[in-house]
């Protein structure tokens, strides 16, 4: 990534480059001289004002460009981090040194223990100041917030390699890796509402009992699940997580029934979504309703 902004930084020597205005003042008439001096002063002020306006414009343009570059770079860093360290490894491996994130580095407010480094404090102050002045706060710290973690155990068919746990939410798989302690790979998912929703999930077969899937949820959904009746938008990993917890006690039938129900609901929602996005379908539906209304009005 190039640091070159392809812009000409505002030139501080700009005023010096301006040609000095030559004003001929008659030495024979004092009144005329006074008038000319006053006139020159106003003219100079106007010129100075124009110069300052021009500088103001340049600074604003430069600032906008740098801001855009900064956020692009930050977004790039987030992408790199999610690719390099998927999931929530640091939770399972507390001895592993936590990877430094940009929030730490730049001193962003992230809910973690503040580092006492004066450099970070400095950056933090600058960041706060920037946000105050720019009024362009972005939720860049959301993904760094400390997340709640919960684990659920789900019985699964040994032949099923999809590592899918139906829990009432939609997920996007973004990675899979083989871990040292388990022959079965571990899959990483993000909530489909990401990046606005920070919840992550990782699924892996239990090393002790391969017929059980272990799903670990990190974070709290900040939206309703696909099934609105699930209710609590802030429930961790969805309310069906609680149902899945019960499964651990051996209520397999209840789980299967619940899974079928959830799957149907998800399917219905997906179908409804795709249909309402289809303009032909919407037009046909509108025509059908209009036709029905007209029929009723005739009778």
């Amino acid at each position, binding site marked *: *990534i190039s*640091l070159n902004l392809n812009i000409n930084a505002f030139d501080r020597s700009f005023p010096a480059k301006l040609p000095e205005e030559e004003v001929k003042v008659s030495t024979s008439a004092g009144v005329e001289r006074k008038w000319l001096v*006053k006139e020159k*002063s*106003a003219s100079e*002020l*106007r010129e*100075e*004002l124009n110069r*300052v*306006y021009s*500088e*103001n414009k340049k*600074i*604003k343009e*430069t*600032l906008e460009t*740098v*801001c855009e*570059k*900064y956020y692009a*770079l*930050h977004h*790039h*860093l987030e992408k*790199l981090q999610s690719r390099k360290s998927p999931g929530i490894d640091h939770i399972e491996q507390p001895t592993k040194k936590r990877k430094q994130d*940009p929030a730490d*580095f*730049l001193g962003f407010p992230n809910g973690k223990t503040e580092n006492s480094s004066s450099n970070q404090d400095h*950056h933090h102050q*600058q*960041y706060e*100041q*920037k946000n105050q*002045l*720019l009024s362009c706060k972005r939720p860049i710290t959301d993904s760094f917030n400390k997340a709640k973690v919960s684990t659920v155990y789900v019985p699964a068919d040994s032949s099923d390699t999809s590592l899918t746990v139906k829990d009432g939410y939609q997920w996007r798989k973004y990675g899979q890796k083989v871990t040292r302690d388990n022959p079965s790979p571990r899959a990483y998912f993000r909530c489909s509402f990401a990046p606005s929703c920070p919840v992550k999930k990782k699924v892996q077969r239990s090393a002790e009992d391969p017929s059980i899937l272990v799903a670990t949820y990190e974070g709290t959904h900040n939206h309703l699940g696909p099934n609105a009746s699930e209710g609590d938008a802030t429930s961790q990993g969805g309310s069906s997580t609680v149902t899945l917890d019960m499964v651990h006690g051996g209520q397999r039938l209840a789980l299967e029934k619940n899974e079928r129900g959830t799957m149907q609901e998800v399917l219905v929602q997906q179908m409804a979504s795709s249909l309402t996005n289809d303009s032909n379908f919407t037009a046909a539906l509108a025509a059908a309703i209009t036709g029905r209304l007209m029929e009723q009005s005739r009778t």
Partner: protein
Amino acid sequence: QNASELREELNRVNSENKKLTEMLATVWENYHALHHHLE
């Protein structure tokens, strides 16, 4: 606009430019820090 109004406006824009320059320095510094971090 008379001279006094011009001076007032000049002061206002100069003050705004000063703030903007400070902001620019801050963002620029953060940008460099992030770039360095990525390297």
